[in-house]
């Protein structure tokens, strides 16, 4: 028996991923290019590298033909009530690939909640406790969430009027709107529950815009405030006792979870992490939550979110609309925070620097740093960082409440 070398080579070629590119699978090729662009942005331009490197690499892995790391069809069946494997993790474990297994942690909301625990362990709520009014700035800066939600639904009208093919359902619009909360884990938590097919696009938009905050916010900060307002020096805030710091996470968890029970996983984990930090008795747990655990979960979360960027789901007009609506959401949230900062400045007769309002968009601590830098530009002796951290952490709670509300309405 002789070996037909030509046939073997042909089989080898046909079995390779390269052959699929020449047989009409152009989408995977484009997605590999997009993955490389995202890697470039993460490594060279330093756009949220801790998350974007994993997302981009997950995108590359999932779009390698025949690699079998992630199976979109399994998850489509998992989500289909008419399918025999509806909500069956057993089917995923039986037939899935590595990234399918990773993705179970996203689907069950374990990763976003554990990330929130780490965020809580790293967050100092002292500035918020010493100036509780900053909670109002955090609330005002959620404006973009609801404007983008409305904008996504308004696109349906364009559909009808102009015959466009872009349109979003209520749950999809809610997932897009939450990009304005500038909070990655919250956006992933909500999107996984309401519109999992948009997860890749929404996560990439959310993290990219968070990285772009130093570019997105300053023009609007200048536009909406006067040089005199930007130079306002704020008074020192009061010292917060240790007991207050310990009671705060307990009170917030009970209060917010009673108000919107759907937010309990996110807020509960955020506050548990913070309690680890504040008790002073659980330093080891706090250290694990903010370092080892956070790093492990970040790796799993980012690669599995990247894995959802399958060409057929990602290369759509919807993704482009999400990118546009996402930036609109960020801008409107910034404007909402700044305008409420101005109102507070006026009400306190110039004691509040309105620049701290833009920090209410969450994106801890980047947005607070931007407020501080802008303030120092107009008054070098001005240190707004601690004042801006109040609305900044209030924004985290605010976006979790917004997500809880949207989940209550659209969660079914």
């Amino acid at each position, binding site marked *: 028996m002789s070996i037909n070398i030509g046939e073997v080579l042909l089989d080898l070629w046909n079995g390779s991923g390269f052959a699929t590119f020449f047989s009409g699978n152009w989408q995977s090729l484009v997605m590999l290019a997009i993955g490389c662009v995202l890697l470039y942005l993460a490594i060279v331009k330093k756009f949220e590298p801790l998350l974007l490197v994993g997302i981009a690499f997950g995108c590359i892995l999932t779009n390698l033909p025949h690699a079998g790391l992630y199976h979109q069809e399994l998850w489509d069946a998992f*989500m*289909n*009530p008419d399918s025999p494997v509806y909500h069956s993790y057993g089917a995923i474990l039986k037939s899935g690939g590595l990234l399918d297994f990773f993705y179970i942690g996203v689907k069950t909301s374990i990763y976003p909640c554990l990330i929130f625990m780490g965020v809580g362990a790293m967050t100092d709520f*002292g*500035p*918020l*406790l*010493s100036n*509780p*009014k900053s*909670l*109002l700035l*955090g*609330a*005002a800066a*959620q*404006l973009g*969430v*609801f*404007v983008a*939600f*409305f904008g996504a*639904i*308004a696109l*349906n*009208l364009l559909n009808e009027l102009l015959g466009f093919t872009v349109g979003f*359902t*209520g*749950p999809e*619009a809610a997932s897009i709107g939450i990009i304005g909360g500038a909070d990655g884990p919250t956006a992933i938590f909500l999107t996984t529950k*309401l519109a999992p097919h948009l997860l890749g696009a929404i996560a990439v938009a959310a993290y990219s815009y968070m990285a772009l905050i130093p570019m997105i916010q300053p023009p609007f900060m200048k536009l909406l405030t006067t040089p005199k307002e930007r130079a306002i020096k704020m008074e*020192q*805030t*009061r*010292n*917060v*006792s240790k*007991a*207050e710091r310990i*009671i*705060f996470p307990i*009170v*917030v968890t009970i*209060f*917010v979870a009673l*108000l*919107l029970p759907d937010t309990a996983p996110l807020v509960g984990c955020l506050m548990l992490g913070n309690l680890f930090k504040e008790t002073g008795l659980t330093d080891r747990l706090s250290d694990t939550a903010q370092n080892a655990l956070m790093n492990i979960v970040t790796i799993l979360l980012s690669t599995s979110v990247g894995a959802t960027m399958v060409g057929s789901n990602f290369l759509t007009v919807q993704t482009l609309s999400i990118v546009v609506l996402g930036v609109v959401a960020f801008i409107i949230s910034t404007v909402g925070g700044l305008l409420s900062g101005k109102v507070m400045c006026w009400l306190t007769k110039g004691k509040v620097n309105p620049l701290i309002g833009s920090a209410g968009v969450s994106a801890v601590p980047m947005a607070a740093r931007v407020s501080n830098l802008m303030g120092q530009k107009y008054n070098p002796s001005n*240190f707004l960082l*601690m004042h801006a951290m109040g609305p900044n952490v*209030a924004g985290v*709670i*605010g976006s979790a*409440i*917004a997500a809880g*509300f*949207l989940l209550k*309405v*659209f*969660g*079914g």
Partner: protein
Amino acid sequence: MNMLSGDLIHLGLADAGIIALLGYGVVFLGLIFLMIVVILLGKAFSAAGKKKAAAPAPVEETVEEAPKPVAPGAAGELKLHNVEPKIAAMLMAIVADKLGKPLNELRFISIKEVE
């Protein structure tokens, strides 16, 4: 798949507007309530702190403390406000290092944590 009614999946503009306004209102309401709770908490703690400060100190036979020995070359006592002695020592060492002067040639009057 969401088990929602068709009205919530295919939302009209008016309904979307109402949901957006309601959602923004709920966020405000939630954080306003939280603000009130935090303010009350702060007031309760500062009242408790004041009470503690105003309470007469327990009567004890006061034994006059002997003056603390002063370090050689020191020019009086250093006042620390919310700063651990360990951190204060570190800060003084850094200042001395940056200025390039021996620590005993510098005089620190007080160190206060700026928040």
